[in-house]
């Protein structure tokens, strides 16, 4: 019975090729735009989040604005932060600008960042060659520097910079390491930076306190607890002035991004589903025409013993087959569009089972919703009137 219905539906679609095609076009456009939008937004989201993850999803950034009495964090605060549970280390960033001299070349206004050994231990993948700043350098305020890739290019023009000496604020620093070039993302790029031990930086740049600290988590799952503890430590340190500091979690930013893109894809899918609605109305129209055309067939089937339920089933299946057919074409078309977009925009195409299920689900749903009225109409026809209708 079921198989016959599917076969009959398929025959009807084939026998009315042009009409079926035009009717199904609405579904094709609707499904393809939903699939394309979801896939494109998903792909773009994936590439944005992976960029953000590179900056460190296990990192909590603390910014200290300070109070009139205490302008920022000090060594003991740093120690307190390191002692918080699930924190494996804290890396301060002391930044300032300075002109840098190598041989006779002077470049003004270079970002100089004071770092400690924690940064080079936890983000060791950033170091291209040489060594990072270690704990001895920090404690002894050793005049050593690690330079970014752009700086290395500007000063040394392809020569190996390690072992060379540069002048920062009239003090000679020996270059011990070279940072890897980072991606073009503006935030957190270290291409144009010179890193020196933060103790040296505070002294030579004349900075009294630390205003930025990155705390690294052992277990990002526990980020809520960690954030709470950090807030406790910091508010105590700043005499309970909550506006003296801010704590910022990369994971939160990731969540925000995925929230925004999720909302965006919902919004776009909502717009696309309007075309599905229009497509559904087309299906309903065609099915109503089909019921009228086949009135005598319905009458005959009833005379031969078809129950109202099986007539309804037959027309419903026909509408679903029609919609699934459109949905399949729409799916392929949508994936095709997303594929072209992925090449044009430059992200990785991500096709999930959810997308496939959405395509199947939406088209079957449209088939049922818009096929029901015509199918009910067919099932309720009076066999005598229907047979007389030729």
């Amino acid at each position: 019975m079921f198989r016959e219905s599917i076969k009959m539906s398929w025959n009807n679609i084939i026998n009315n090729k042009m009409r079926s095609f035009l009717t199904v076009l609405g579904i094709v456009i609707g499904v393809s735009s939903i699939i394309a939008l979801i896939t494109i937004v998903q792909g773009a989201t994936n590439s944005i989040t992976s960029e953000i993850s590179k900056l460190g999803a296990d990192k909590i950034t603390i910014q200290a604005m300070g109070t009139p009495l205490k302008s920022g964090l000090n060594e003991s605060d740093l120690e307190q932060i390191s002692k918080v549970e699930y924190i494996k280390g804290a890396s301060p960033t002391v930044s300032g600008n300075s002109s840098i001299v190598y041989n006779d070349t002077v470049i003004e206004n270079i970002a100089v960042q004071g770092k400690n050994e924690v940064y080079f231990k936890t983000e060791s993948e950033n170091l291209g060659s040489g060594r990072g700043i270690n704990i001895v350098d920090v404690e002894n305020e050793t005049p050593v520097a690690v330079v970014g890739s752009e700086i290395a290019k500007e000063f040394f023009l392809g020569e190996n910079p390690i072992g060379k000496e540069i002048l920062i604020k009239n003090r000679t620093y020996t270059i011990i390491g070279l940072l890897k070039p980072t991606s073009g993302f503006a935030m957190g790029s270290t291409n144009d930076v010179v890193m020196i031990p933060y103790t040296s930086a505070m002294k030579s740049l004349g900075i009294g306190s630390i205003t930025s600290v990155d705390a690294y988590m052992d277990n990002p799952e526990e980020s809520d607890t960690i954030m709470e503890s950090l807030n406790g430590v910091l508010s105590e340190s700043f005499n309970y002035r909550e506006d003296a500091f801010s704590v910022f979690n990369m994971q939160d930013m990731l969540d925000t991004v995925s929230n925004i893109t999720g909302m965006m894809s919902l919004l776009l899918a909502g717009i696309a589903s309007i075309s599905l609605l229009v497509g559904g109305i087309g299906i309903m129209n065609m099915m109503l025409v089909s019921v009228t055309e086949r009135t005598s067939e319905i009458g005959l089937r009833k005379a031969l013993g078809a129950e109202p339920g099986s007539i309804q089933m037959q027309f419903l299946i026909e509408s679903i087959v029609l919609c699934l057919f459109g949905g399949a074409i729409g799916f392929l078309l949508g994936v095709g569009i997303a594929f072209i977009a992925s090449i044009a925009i430059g992200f990785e195409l991500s096709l999930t089972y959810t997308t496939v299920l959405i395509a199947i689900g939406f088209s079957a749903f449209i088939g049922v919703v818009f096929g029901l009225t015509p199918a009910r109409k067919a099932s309720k026809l009076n066999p005598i009137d229907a047979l007389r209708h030729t």
Partner: protein
Amino acid sequence: MKEILNMKKIVKTYILGGEAQIVLNEVDLKVYEGEFLSILGPSGSGKSTLMNIIGCLDVPTKGNYVLAGQNVADLNEKELARIRNREIGFVFQSFQLLPRLTALENVELPMIYSNISSKLRRKKALEILERVSLSDKTKNYPNQLSGGQQQRVAIARSIVTEPTILLADEPTGALDQKTGLDIMKLFKDLNKEGRTIIMITHDTNIANYSNRIVKILDGKLTEEQKDNEIKVLRRDVGISV
């Protein structure tokens, strides 16, 4: 003889323009197994309405109708569909074959609704098509068949479920005389094989093929002619079956 159809005081009224019209007026009818009955009447006599009620396409307004031991006067649509499927085989004036199905598929159609497996459907349909001498046309579509062949496909379809009654509505109405006679011979043969046939017609010559005739006029069954009387009539008009 086994009684297979018993109608008692069947009344059918239609409301037309706010006025009740009596189409069937207390019709009593009994049919026994193996009979070939003609219901003869002019158009407007109520014979189509009677056929619809016999065929369970319609229900009477009043009265009692027992078909194959089941009271069908007050069944719902679903139950009527089941009765039509099992107890009645319809043959229509205009054949009513589905144009997009082959002869074989058309014959299989009623068996789909009685949930017979596709293998068995095919087997039975082929057997029946052979019985109506159409073994070589099973793959043809209706528009590739002559009128007589189409009607034979329709007859095959009507008997493939082995119904209690074969119900034919002007089966020769759309055929030329010679083909019509062939069809009537087929009916006669099927009746000899034991099938109960009820035929509705306005044509006395056609009715004479049956072995019992009831006449209907203005919604009332009037006159019965038994087999021996019809034999005399048949001899008079030169029918030789």
